[in-house]
């Protein structure tokens, strides 16, 4: 794979992650049609899922989120061509329309950042919030445990 | 009435704040000795003072006038001298008067004049009270009434020499190397303010009682108010002054033995008293009940001296250092052992008493060499003085 310009990615600082899980909520809302927390999670509504996940063990907690690898194993593993690396930006993008739900990418990813969307039968992963300068999780993190870096 | 605190406590603090070094020497045989070891010893503790006060009390220096009160008076202004001498001539028979001899000492700047008078109260002036009470009245009158005059000391056959400077400087200035005494106390002062007033240095004195003190009397406020009930005017607003008055009140006026006076100033803790046997237990309970206001609290190490006796005392939990040594005929008390060892390397005895446990040094009365009148603790003359309600 040809080397590309350095990719912007979300850097996770475990020592600053406070385990509030707000990144999960901001992500889910951002990927909800309403792009609004209250509308996405309002009473009686079906709760959307985010593409970032906080794991915790005692005082240790951090967010699992796609690293947009330079050599993405998920892209190699994808059987349907749904997972692609944008040659322009270096972003690893997933196209749910082409996804067949084989979970090969989930098995291939060494970071555990591709999530299974049971309801839709496809996988979901971080897309760095197209249309936003800073991804929603980064903007919402109260302790700058998530940083957008080159 | 003149306000002495404008000299000694110019900022009107609660009291004068200071720290220091103390040293004392008693020749227990009553022999008059040179003060040279005392000068060296106190100079060795230079780090404890800051050069803003030094002084000495010496006993046995005026044997030729042993029956006269030796009044050391300091004058900041020659006019004050005229006024004082006028006051004295009206009330006392003055056997001798002279300026205290001094030596030109570079480190001493703007010294006041210091004069001494050997005198006795004249018949017809306040005959109804003892001579001591009359002497005290004169001291209080001069100190509170005559501007620019201050009495350093007023006892018989003893004197206080003090001023602004390191103590060794004061010794040189007052030519103390030319005196011999059987009891020397020395003080190096670390006052927090620099208002250079010679009267503010230690020792503090009333009659032949002198006090040198290291520490701060935290109970000063109430000690002072209690003493004021008995007519003591705490004109200098310094905690050391109250120590002198406490001893005067208890030992001289109320006739309590020194062993009890020290137990009033630094009583045992209640817990300890409860463990004591009768009658000691009841006696101490009584003492604390009666004299609670004279408990001297806070850190202190003090040497109280009068003719024939020197007492070193610490506060109850020994917050200030004090050590004692005996070498030959001499008893030494010092803030630091090194000073004693400097002047007497081979000591027969050495100890650091526990808090509240006095170091008592007495001149052995049978010693023929003693030329000093040692006053008995209780005299009829003194007893009469008790009838006078107050001093002022």
């Amino acid at each position: 794979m040809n080397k590309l310009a350095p990719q912007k990615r979300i850097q996770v600082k475990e020592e600053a992650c406070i385990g509030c899980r707000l990144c999960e909520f901001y992500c889910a809302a951002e990927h909800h049609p309403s792009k609004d927390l209250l509308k996405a999670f309002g009473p009686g509504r079906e709760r959307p899922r985010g593409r970032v996940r906080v794991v915790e063990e005692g005082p240790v907690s951090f967010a699992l989120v796609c690293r947009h690898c330079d050599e993405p194993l998920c892209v190699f593993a994808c059987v349907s061509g749904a997972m692609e690396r944008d040659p322009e930006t270096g972003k690893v993008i997933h196209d749910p329309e082409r996804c067949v739900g084989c979970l090969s990418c989930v098995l291939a990813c060494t970071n555990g950042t591709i999530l299974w969307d049971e309801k839709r039968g496809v996988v979901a992963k971080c897309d760095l919030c197209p249309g936003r300068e800073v991804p929603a999780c980064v903007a919402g993190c109260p302790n700058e445990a998530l940083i957008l870096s080159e | 009435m003149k306000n002495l605190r404008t000299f000694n406590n110019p900022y009107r603090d609660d009291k004068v704040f200071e720290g220091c070094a103390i040293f004392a020497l008693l020749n227990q045989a009553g022999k008059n000795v040179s003060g040279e070891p005392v000068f060296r010893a106190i100079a060795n503790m230079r780090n404890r003072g800051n050069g803003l006060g030094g002084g000495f009390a010496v006993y046995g220096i005026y044997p030729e006038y042993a029956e006269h009160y030796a009044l050391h008076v300091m004058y900041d202004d020659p006019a004050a001298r005229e006024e004082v001498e006028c006051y004295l001539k009206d009330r006392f028979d003055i056997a001798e008067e002279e300026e205290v001899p001094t030596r030109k000492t570079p480190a001493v700047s703007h010294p006041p004049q210091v004069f001494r008078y050997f005198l006795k109260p004249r018949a017809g002036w306040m005959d109804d009270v003892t001579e001591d009470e009359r002497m005290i009245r004169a001291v209080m009158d001069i100190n509170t009434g005559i501007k620019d005059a201050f009495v350093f000391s007023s006892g018989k056959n003893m004197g206080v020499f003090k001023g602004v400077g390191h103590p060794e400087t004061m010794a040189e200035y007052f030519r103390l190397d030319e005196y011999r005494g059987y009891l020397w106390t020395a003080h190096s002062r670390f006052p927090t303010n620099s208002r250079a007033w010679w009267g503010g240095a230690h020792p503090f004195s009333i009659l032949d009682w002198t006090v040198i003190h290291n520490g701060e009397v935290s109970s000063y406020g109430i000690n002072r108010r209690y003493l004021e009930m008995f007519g003591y005017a705490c004109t200098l607003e310094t905690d050391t002054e109250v120590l002198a008055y406490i001893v005067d009140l208890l030992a001289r006026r109320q006739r309590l033995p020194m062993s009890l006076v020290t137990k009033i100033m630094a009583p045992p803790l209640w817990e300890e008293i409860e463990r004591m046997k009768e009658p000691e237990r009841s006696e101490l309970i009584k003492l604390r009940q009666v004299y609670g206001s004279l408990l001297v609290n806070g850190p202190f190490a003090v040497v109280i001296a009068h003719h024939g006796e020197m007492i070193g005392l610490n506060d109850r939990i020994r917050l200030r250092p004090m050590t004692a040594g005996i070498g030959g005929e001499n008893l030494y008390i010092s803030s630091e052992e090194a000073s004693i060892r400097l002047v007497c390397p081979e000591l027969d005895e050495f100890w650091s008493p526990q808090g509240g446990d006095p170091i008592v040094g007495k001149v052995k009365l049978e010693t023929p060499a003693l030329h000093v009148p040692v006053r008995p603790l209780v005299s009829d003359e003194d007893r009469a003085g008790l009838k006078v309600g107050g001093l002022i």
Partner: protein
Amino acid sequence: MLPEINSQLPILNPQPPTGEVAQVDARGLDYRELNRRVDDLLASGAGEIEIRGVHGQRYIASRIRRPVNFRIHGTPGNDLAAFSDGVRLEVFGDAQDGVGNTMNSGEIIVHGRAGDIVGMGMRGGRIFIRDEVGYRTAIHMKEYREQRPVIVIGVMGQDFLGEYMAGGVVVILNLPPRNPKSFSRPPAFIGTGIHGGKIFFRGKLEPYQTGKEVGFDCPDEKEKELLNGIIRDYSNYFSQNLDHVIPDDFLKLYPKNLRPYGRLYAY
């Protein structure tokens, strides 16, 4: 991670003292001059320093951080070896207040008595005082990892020995005092506020003599071994026969609680 404290010290001269003894006459010197002279001698390679005629100079050996031997004759002043780290210092005479104040390591041996607050806040090393000591010995002495301070007192300490003690070992041999006037009443308030360390006291104590935070026990076998070693060292240092002093005579004083004031407050 922090490396071991001692290994962190840049030791100028890692070799043990060469035995080359530099002499200093302290008479007439103030402490700054004396200590500067010592610095100069060390800089020029002296391995051992003998100071004579000491009369109250303060802070001797207080900024030395290498294993230098000092032999001091006279009466050193306050804060002897304060903040020191690794010196071995022998005093032939009495010492004053503040011996080994906040000392980190090393050894001080006093052939005589010492004044108040011996080993205040001391964290490591050993202090041996042949005779008695003043008030507040080992106040707030503490230990840290391999640094375990030891104070050995030949005679007895005055009140408040081991106050606030937070670590280390104090041993009181209770030998006959040089002058009983220093102990007109039995010392009290031993171990007031103790919350670490141990005090080994030879002889008997009345309950009132100790703080209420103190527990009593007999030394166990390991502690007896420690005591035997200390007794042996004391006999050697001061050339005294201590055959009559045996570990079984000692009372162990220990903190009943690591948190003596835990119940003082309303949360």
